């Protein structure tokens, strides 16, 4: 079974320590969300997992073979049409033109793009459409690991819902592993099987939570409730710099579906260092 393990990962830019003692793993078919405030090193962590940066300290053991990424911005090539943008990764793999156009078209239609959009250039598409193209560009590679860097942050709530549904459907159908970073707690509660809460200065994982219900069975009420509970956790409030609650309740025992996961000894050691 393909898996991604990060063990005791640390990274620094020059003398600025970004994060230290990061431990986590991701199995095929699992959605893990890294949640934290800006500046806790989420994007750096994702770049390390994508192989865009070299590991400085610790190790990443990546058994996934076909990773694909989606970024904060759509990052489409402005001089290529929608179809060519979607097929970019296929072209890099050496798939011939007819086959990659066909696969791009099939996926684009499934993601709610019209056949007429395929000949358009990115500037002719709305922001939501550009995000769909960006998602299609990643999914057309049939990845076994999808790395998401807050791709839905700039979209309106309706578009978000639509793209969440598309993403979850694809994820369930293919059994992709998904590693996503976000600062939107509700997004994490909606999509993730596990949530890793990060804190900044230096970046570290402060809580590991498991969500009981499979993502496709969650309804709005459940999501609101879990998000509210998540917001009550002192680790989350500290991490995002929210004022402490007036009546501190114990973190454990209250959650109905949020469960703290068993922390591996390695991770415990790392946490004790912070």
């Amino acid at each position, binding site marked *: 079974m393909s898996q991604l393990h990060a063990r005791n990962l640390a990274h620094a830019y020059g003398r600025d320590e970004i994060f230290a003692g990061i431990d986590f793993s991701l199995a095929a078919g699992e959605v893990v969300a890294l949640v934290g405030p800006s500046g806790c090193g989420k994007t750096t962590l994702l*770049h390390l997992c*994508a192989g*865009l940066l070299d590991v400085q300290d610790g190790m990443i053991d990546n058994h996934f073979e076909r990773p694909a990424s989606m*970024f904060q911005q759509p990052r489409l*090539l*402005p*001089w290529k049409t929608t179809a060519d943008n979607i097929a*970019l990764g296929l072209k890099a793999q050496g798939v011939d033109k007819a086959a990659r156009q066909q696969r791009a078209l099939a996926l684009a239609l499934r993601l709610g793009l019209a056949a007429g959009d395929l000949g358009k250039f990115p500037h002719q598409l709305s922001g939501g459409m550009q995000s769909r193209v960006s998602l299609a560009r990643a999914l057309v590679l049939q990845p076994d690991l999808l790395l998401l860097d807050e791709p839905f942050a700039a979209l309106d709530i309706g578009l978000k819902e639509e793209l969440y549904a598309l993403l979850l459907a694809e994820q369930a159908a293919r059994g992709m592993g998904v590693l996503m970073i976000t600062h939107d707690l509700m997004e994490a509660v909606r999509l993730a099987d596990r949530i890793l809460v990060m804190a900044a200065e230096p970046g570290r994982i402060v809580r590991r939570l498991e969500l009981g219900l499979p993502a496709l069975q969650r309804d709005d009420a459940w999501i609101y409730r879990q998000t509210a509970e998540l917001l009550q956790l002192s680790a989350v409030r500290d991490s995002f710099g929210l004022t402490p609650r007036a009546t501190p309740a114990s973190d454990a025992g209250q959650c109905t579906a949020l469960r703290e996961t068993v922390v591996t000894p390695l991770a415990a050691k790392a946490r004790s260092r912070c």
Partner: protein
Amino acid sequence: MTLLRAWLRGLPAYLWSGWGALASLFLLFAAWELVAAQYGALVLPAPLETLQRLRELLVAGEALPELLATGRRALLGFAISALVGSVLGLAAGVSMTASMMARPLVTVLMGMPPIAWLVLAMLWFGASDGTPVFTVFVASFPLVFVGALQGTRTLDNQLKDMALAFRLPRRMLFFDVYLPHVISYLFPAWITALAMSWKVVVMAELFATQDGVGAALAVSRSHLDTAATMAWIVAVVGLLLAVEYLLLEPIKREVERWREVPT
């Protein structure tokens, strides 16, 4: 080939859209006519008179060799500056140090009046073709150089990261990510440089050569032949307009279709 086909396909619609441009040109002719009527043919011959004179020059076979000589020099100088400017500009853009060092040099080159280069070129190359070609090269080189430099410097790091994340091979990185971006800066620079070449070559010929449109202008001036002078000017400007609007502009539109402002 696809570019040629697109050019031919787009031509009728493009020409039709030229009515506005044509109307403004005719307004210019009207103003010219007005001034000519005011001051008389010695100061400024009327447009029709000028065109008649141009026709005589063309029929007598005087105009064509001169225009060809001028075109040859302008295009040669332009070609050299486009080639050298693009290559050096790209190279300078890749290195931060080189681009910082190049900046003031380019400012000096741009600020130096072409007439000053012409005097130097006359000393170095004499009355040969070298003088106009060199002057054209020196005048248009910095334009191309700056275009290429900016094109390379403004490459988007986010797109580069994206390309690396999607494991684009080197060839694709160059042809699909870097080149289209750089071309979008280079192409306008080439067009500006070509217009500059055309202007500078006539000036250089006026002073330094025995043939070409510039030399013909010098002769007609010494004969106080205003009609011929205007005829030559019309010929040169007309040629520039034709090259710019019939050849370069349609190509530019096709190459930069992705840039069009959404309507």
